[in-house]
């Protein structure tokens, strides 16, 4: 890699802007995604910002199975995002369709409609798991194995502390 490509990869890892899209979830995953945006977890430490428009976003965070009605909208939102773009499926339903798999009004998981880069299972996925999943996605940008995280020390440490204090 030339130094320019290295710089760009570094910048992409340090500044992932996300857009949140509900493709038919029951709202539990949405609440957890919103919770992970709160000052308690403070994901601006990692440069993550929530953006309102797909044009500004790098990561499309989807929750819920894809219903037949939302399919076209999901594809449209995905195609409005500028390259390079990534999709994160949050929750069991968006990973595989969950309990709704095979239902008459549901297409299945997010990957039946658009390509997905990271799957975060859980019903609902906890904020710590969501942040962990995004960290692994960023690690794959650095050419790491799927189960390794990006080289961001804070990302490994801080959510765990927050997690223990939430449970305790």
């Amino acid at each position, binding site marked *: 890699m030339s130094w320019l490509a290295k*710089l*760009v990869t*570094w*910048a*992409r890892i*340090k*500044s992932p802007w996300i857009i949140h899209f509900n493709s038919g979830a029951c709202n539990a995953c949405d609440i957890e995604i919103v919770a992970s945006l709160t*000052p308690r977890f*403070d994901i*601006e*430490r990692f*440069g993550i910002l*929530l*953006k*309102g*428009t797909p*044009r*500004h976003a*790098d990561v499309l965070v989807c929750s819920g199975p894809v219903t037949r009605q939302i399919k076209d909208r999901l594809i449209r939102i995905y195609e*409005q995002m*500028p*390259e*390079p773009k990534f999709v994160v499926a949050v929750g069991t339903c968006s990973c595989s369709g969950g309990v709704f798999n095979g239902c008459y009004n549901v297409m299945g998981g997010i990957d039946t409609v658009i390509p997905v880069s990271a799957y975060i299972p859980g019903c609902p996925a906890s904020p710590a798991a969501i942040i962990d999943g995004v960290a692994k996605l960023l690690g794959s940008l650095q050419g790491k194995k799927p189960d390794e995280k990006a080289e961001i020390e804070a990302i490994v440490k801080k959510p765990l502390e927050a997690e223990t204090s939430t449970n305790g």
Partner: protein
Amino acid sequence: MSALLLILFLILEFLFLGFLGMAVEFIDRKLYARMQNRIGPPWFQPFADFVKLVAKEDIIPEEANPMMFKLMPVLALTAVFTAFLHIPLWDSTPLISFNGSVIVIVYLLTIPTLTFFLGGWHSTSLFSMIGAVRTLTQLFAYEVPLLLSVLAPAILAHTWSIEEMSEFYSKNPLFALTNAIGSIVAMIALQGKLERVPFDMPEAETEIVGGTFTEYSGRLLAMFRLAIDMETVVGASLIVAVFLPFGLHSGPLIGFVLYLAKILLVILLLALLRTVTARLRIEQMVVFCWKYLAPAALVQIIISLTLNWIIK
């Protein structure tokens, strides 16, 4: 040869302003985060955002006017940089100085807002059009108080040149204290000009998606963001030069440190305002600006006129 040197100098100055703008964005975001009991972004965050946006794909909507769409970010950067050349930094002497430069600076700072409007309008998205109209509505609300509040010190100093104004106030520092109301008005108006909370209706992401910049992506968005960062520096420098002209003749090094400290003070106050308030509705903002801000600026002008009369 001298033209080449001038171009080189201008490029260096542009890089300096860009660096300062990113530093100011980081300080603002960090202060905002700390006041919300968060840790906040790391120091390189604005730079990482900029590099990432530059390396991203540029999407120009089919319906948009490509020429205007591409031209507007460049124009915003140019106008802000031109305004910066008129503002004194560590000394009382700016690069370009003439009688009337105060008015020129205020008008040059209006151009970025107009480019936001035109860029949003020419991207032909519904959301960006709403944002563009709000930008222009806001312009009519805060522009008059800002101009009036900068006018009052000029009346007292009997000059339209920012250099002579700084000179006058650094000779008579007590007179600068009489401009307290004007400085508060100018700071609130600057918050409106920079489209930050509580005056961020043009890009209210919770109601109109991305506002003016909805359709902008990649390099063009990076330029707009850089222009806003630079505008923050230039606006803060204008307030510092007009309302806080202290310690101007203490050499370039101390003068520069003092200048940075003063800018930091202005940024701190702006970040504080951003933290303690929530977004207003557009008509609340217009009412606020015309009902309270403009009369306060007029009071400041009356104070300046009275002082003028007493001195004579």
